[in-house]
């Protein structure tokens, strides 16, 4: 086994191109478990954890670019105003894990339980890839994560990061697991309201092979918010049958399985609970805003 230590992205891309079997390693919080337990013995690894080009983020005119190498701890420290992303980051692992883990790693591993992934999906994020031969290309999130632990990364490519437009309304990330730290989600969900477009985004994780946008639930809720006058009136509430209708449609959007962490039935139930609570938090936040203004 070889370990390659590039100093720049350019060097890393050359290495990637010349050693097709070389696996990129950043925080190592997924990869090292595989190595430690002999599940993986790559021909080579390329350390991308310190490449300066992957460790930055930029906010320009409401658009965010988040480098693949920004750790969850740095997201919490430097981007706390990106609420759902910050909440998702905080829910990952432990301080030790958050100091190393990255959104790039979530994308690279492409697990349906990756906590950053519902946030990216809710924001219609694009994933940036780069290679020495072809330069940059950008894929919609659902064209990059293709299945359980399967993504569209080319053998000579590295993940640059993700980009998306910020949303103006209340948003949250929530997660269910056996502890409130160090858990792989049994179900997780990102909810965002976008008053600007009068739309709602609901992205579900751990309840299907990939992240699911609950489109039916989104359309239903956006329409019911319109009926209730809630887009214009911050203090407007929704009748309980509408809240249940929303949760029901979120449950219907899930296609969970039984596995070691939980049953399909529990996951379906849990995702409905997360949906109902997330909606409640969003409406409460708007009501608070109404009182202040």
């Amino acid at each position, binding site marked *: *086994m*070889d*370990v390659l*230590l590039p100093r720049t992205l350019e060097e890393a891309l050359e290495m990637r191109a010349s050693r097709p079997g070389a696996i990129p*390693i950043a*925080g*190592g*919080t997924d990869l*090292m*478990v595989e*190595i*430690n*337990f002999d599940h993986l*013995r790559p021909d080579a*690894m390329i*350390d991308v*954890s310190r490449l300066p080009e992957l460790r930055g983020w930029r906010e320009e005119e409401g658009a965010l670019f988040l480098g693949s190498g920004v750790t969850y*701890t740095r997201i919490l420290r430097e981007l706390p105003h990106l609420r759902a992303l910050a909440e998702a980051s905080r829910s990952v*692992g*432990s*301080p*030790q*894990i958050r*100091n*190393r883990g990255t959104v790039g790693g979530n994308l690279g591993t492409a697990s349906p339980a990756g906590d950053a992934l519902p946030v990216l999906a809710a924001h219609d994020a694009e994933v940036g890839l780069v290679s020495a031969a072809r330069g940059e290309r950008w894929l919609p999130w659902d064209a990059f994560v293709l299945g359980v632990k399967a993504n569209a990364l080319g053998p000579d490519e590295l993940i640059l990061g993700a980009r998306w437009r910020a949303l103006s309304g209340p948003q949250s990330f929530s997660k269910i697991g056996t502890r*409130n*730290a*160090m858990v792989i989600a049994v179900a997780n969900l990102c909810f965002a309201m976008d008053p600007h477009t009068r739309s709602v985004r609901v992205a579900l994780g751990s309840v299907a092979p990939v992240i699911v946008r609950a489109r039916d639930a989104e359309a239903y809720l956006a329409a019911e918010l319109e009926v209730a006058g809630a887009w214009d009136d911050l203090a407007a509430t929704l009748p309980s049958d509408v809240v249940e209708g929303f949760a029901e449609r979120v449950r219907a959007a899930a296609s969970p399985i039984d596995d070691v962490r939980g049953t399909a039935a529990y996951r379906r139930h849990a995702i409905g609970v997360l949906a109902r609570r997330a909606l409640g938090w969003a409406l409460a936040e708007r009501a608070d805003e109404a009182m202040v203004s």
Partner: protein
Amino acid sequence: MLIRLNVNGEPREADAWEGASLLSFLRDDLGLPGSKNACEQGECGSCSVWLDGELVCACLVLAAQVHGREVRTVEGLAEGDRLHPVQEAFLGAGGVQCGFCTPGLIVAVTDLLERDPSPDELAVREALSGNLCRCTGYQKILDAVRLAAERKREGAW
């Protein structure tokens, strides 16, 4: 491969298998067995060390990734026979039973109090969420944190 780094303030170097974790590099190649191997998957925190000042699980860092870097381990806390105030606090509060989790917890607690000298209860629990203890039930560990924080406020460190 030869890995050169700074450990507890001193330049060190040793040969390591390319796939070795920092944990096995510290224990097997550098003669620093203070960091413990309980889970090898970043769940228990018994291997907690600082890499360039950040608290990490050494089992999840590839040894090669620390080439040219600074690592601080539990062995770097005491000064000769003088224990670090966090170590004293664990003794004072009775927060040690079998001792296996202790090095990792002492590193995590030191990290917390260096960054936040007066953490509230929730901040302490969140800061230690990456460390598991099978013996104590955590109460005396939390007492040790409070004791160490008190000592810090008194200027002991």
